[in-house]
């Protein structure tokens, strides 16, 4: 199989980001962005979760395999988790996932871990904006996947 063409540097529009936002902090931050009428690229979608600890690493992987170029897991400030430091465990787990993503070249840059936005709209916008810029030069995972799926099954 010729893999050269599969991973190419060109992108198509703004990177697609799936955001898992904990509904106690990060989601309120997203809401604050809306109320502040900021202008953001429309290529991200938000899935509200009860706690960042609830986000399965497998969901992150599934998201990367379903058209997302990047995944953001956003929770409450460390030490401020409603569920007694569950976000600490989530952070450790996601960092380990980052190691795995690095090993296969997908890159931990595609996984954003943010425990810094409480109800702060501006921070949410900044964090997301920085993430978009980080993802821009990277190859499109959706295109990569499509090419792979179009390959004949066996060499």
């Amino acid at each position, binding site marked *: 199989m010729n*893999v050269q063409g599969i991973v190419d540097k060109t992108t198509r529009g703004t990177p697609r980001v799936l955001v898992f936002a904990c509904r106690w902090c990060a989601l309120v931050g997203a809401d604050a962005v809306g109320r502040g009428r900021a202008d953001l690229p429309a290529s991200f979608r938000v899935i509200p979760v009860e706690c960042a600890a609830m986000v399965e690493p*497998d969901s992150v992987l599934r998201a990367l*395999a379903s058209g997302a170029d990047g995944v953001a897991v956003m929770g409450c400030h460390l030490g401020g988790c409603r569920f007694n430091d569950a976000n600490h465990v989530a952070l450790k787990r996601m960092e380990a996932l980052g*190691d*795995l993503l690095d*090993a296969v*070249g997908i890159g931990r840059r595609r996984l954003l871990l943010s425990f810094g936005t409480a109800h702060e709209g501006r921070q949410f916008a900044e964090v997301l904006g920085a993430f978009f810029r980080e993802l821009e030069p990277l190859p499109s995972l959706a295109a990569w996947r499509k090419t792979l799926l179009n390959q004949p099954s066996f060499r």
Partner: protein
Amino acid sequence: MTSTLKTIRGKAENLLAGGLADGVLCLGRDRFNVVQPRLFHKAEEVGSLEIEPKWNLAKLAMQTLRSAEKSFRLTVVCRGCDERALLELVKRNQIDASRMTTLSYTCGREQAEACLCPRPYPENPAAGEKIEGVDPFGDPRFASLLAGDDQERMARWTGLLSRCLKCYGCRNACPICVCTPCKLEDDLWVERSAVPAEMIPYHLIRAFHLSDTCVACGACQDACPVGIPLLALQLVMRRSLREKYGYEAGLEADRKSPLLMDFEHASPAGFALPAWTVSSEAPHER
């Protein structure tokens, strides 16, 4: 016959003859001269016991104990990696440690280099001399799998994992993979009809699930019919856990994975939980 083999045969014979074990799980040479796993019941059979080639028996040990009567006591003849796998299975409540003992032996230099194993010995071998292991990251073939920038690695791993036939051999051979049902067969996570198995949903899910329990026995890699170097991904994760938390799966019977605990406490309750298997609904006697 090597001295290690002689020692193991002798000890296995003693165990069976003395009634200290109901069965010894090891490799055996059958009448067609084929070497394959065998459960020895009688001391007289031990003459055909073999310890080569490398063959991980941890999962077989688990399945043997499951199908045997409650009183069955099993001895497993194993190398270091196998013993570590058995320890992880005990930790995860798949094997009742009171029904099993190990008769372990060290690996030789050739095997250690073939496996790129940093620990080619069990903690307390019954036979053989411990030798120094090999650092896989120092090996050029291994290092080349992880070399280059993100793009190069992605292209390389896409190519490697595209050989996959979705035979589930890796999952079946892995001693730690015991879940039924298994996520990799659930079309919520893995497209059932897609061959090769998709890299991210199949291989990365499996690799991550094993990140803190893989003992680097290499059974997955040995089982893969198309020669994908699956162990490489797990070794990266093992190294990361070792560096960050000083944790290595397969070595500590009473320490849980750091990925399950928060930073501040060893356990959510602020103290070391007694044993995996103690249910806190049962009265805690102290």
